[in-house]
């Protein structure tokens, strides 16, 4: 059973079997959810220059957009916290009955469809690269240091990418098809 299906047109791998991925996915998703909560609350980066010092958390980064720009604060918060977290919650909701060989949860199909539609809008990894760019820009002017949340966020990004590549969408859809 080591077969895989490949697109006849562009040779992208369509289906490759991954056994027991369900439990690993759920444990990864739970880990990432805990990390998201922690990464939001703790200071993310700190800066020091000329005797002054300042900490910033992810929440503060989103809420710098004030007044006419406050729509953007909500959008940024959604892109880097709410949507990644929502996707994982939906994934756990869909997978939990499947891995115990129970019938799918009510509304599991719309839930997984929503989770899939949100993929392009979940931008945690882009925010992480954005931090690197900001650090490069500031490194000449001030001392910038990572806070605890930055490390959590770094691990989180790796785990989010791992979750996405471990997930076999085809078999999840197939198990929802009964």
């Amino acid at each position, binding site marked *: 059973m080591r077969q895989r299906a490949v697109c*006849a*047109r*562009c040779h992208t791998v369509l289906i490759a079997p991954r056994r027991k991925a369900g439990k690993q996915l759920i444990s990864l998703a739970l880990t990432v959810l805990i990390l998201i909560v922690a990464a939001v609350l703790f200071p993310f*980066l*700190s*800066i020091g*220059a*000329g005797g*002054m010092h*300042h900490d*910033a958390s992810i929440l*503060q*980064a*989103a*809420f*710098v*957009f004030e007044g*006419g*720009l406050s*729509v*953007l604060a909500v*959008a*940024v918060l959604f*892109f*880097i916290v709410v949507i990644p977290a929502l996707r994982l919650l939906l994934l756990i909701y869909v997978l939990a009955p499947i891995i115990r060989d129970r019938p799918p949860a009510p509304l599991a*199909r*719309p839930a*997984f*469809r929503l989770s*899939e*539609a949100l993929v*392009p*809008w979940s*931008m945690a990894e*882009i*925010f992480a*690269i*954005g*931090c690197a*760019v*900001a650090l*490069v*820009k*500031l490194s*000449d*002017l*001030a001392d*910038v240091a990572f806070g605890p949340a930055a490390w959590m966020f770094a691990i989180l990004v790796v785990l989010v990418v791992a979750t996405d590549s471990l997930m076999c*969408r*085809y078999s999840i*859809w197939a198990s*929802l*098809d009964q």
Partner: protein
Amino acid sequence: MRTARDMGLVGCTRCMRVAPLGTALCPRCGSILHSRDPMALQKVWAWWLLGLGCYIPANLYPMLETRTLVSTQSDTIVGGAVTLAQHGNWGVALIILVASVVIPVAKFLVLAGLAFGVWRGTRLSQARQHLLYEIVEYIGRWSMIDVFVVAILSSLVQLQALATITPGRASLFFALSVIFTMLSAQSFDSRMIWDSARPPDDQEDRQP
């Protein structure tokens, strides 16, 4: 190549299940099924125009306002890169120019080219068109990095009198422009690329 359409089937772009042609909703996931989305090009152009409309003010208004002890400076996207280059930071300046000017403009051009290509025909091969589409769809969300950098810089550089950075109006327009171009790319039905070149013999005849 035998496609689902030849066999009287329609595939769901969301969950990959096939259903008989004419089925309105995917029996598995409930998405709306189209063998080709008849409104695709209209949606692409509508979002494209909105995106372009937001990209113009994004370049005219300041992206960042830097207040230091001695001066207050507001920089547009291009202006900021020029300032950095004048200070000798060629690398960072180049990255900013590529990420916020070259890539967005290229995205607008490629999307317009693809939409025009499936409407009026094109000389690009199908494989090349698919590749271009995948690049545009993949790269789209990464443009949001600019907005995140602005957010991080402004939340971090709050050193009272010494230096403060606040986001400018352009950040909102830039974010909207990225969102609209992402929606434009998502509305494009890449299966239309297959139609433009079918049947294959026909296309060979057209070549001189």
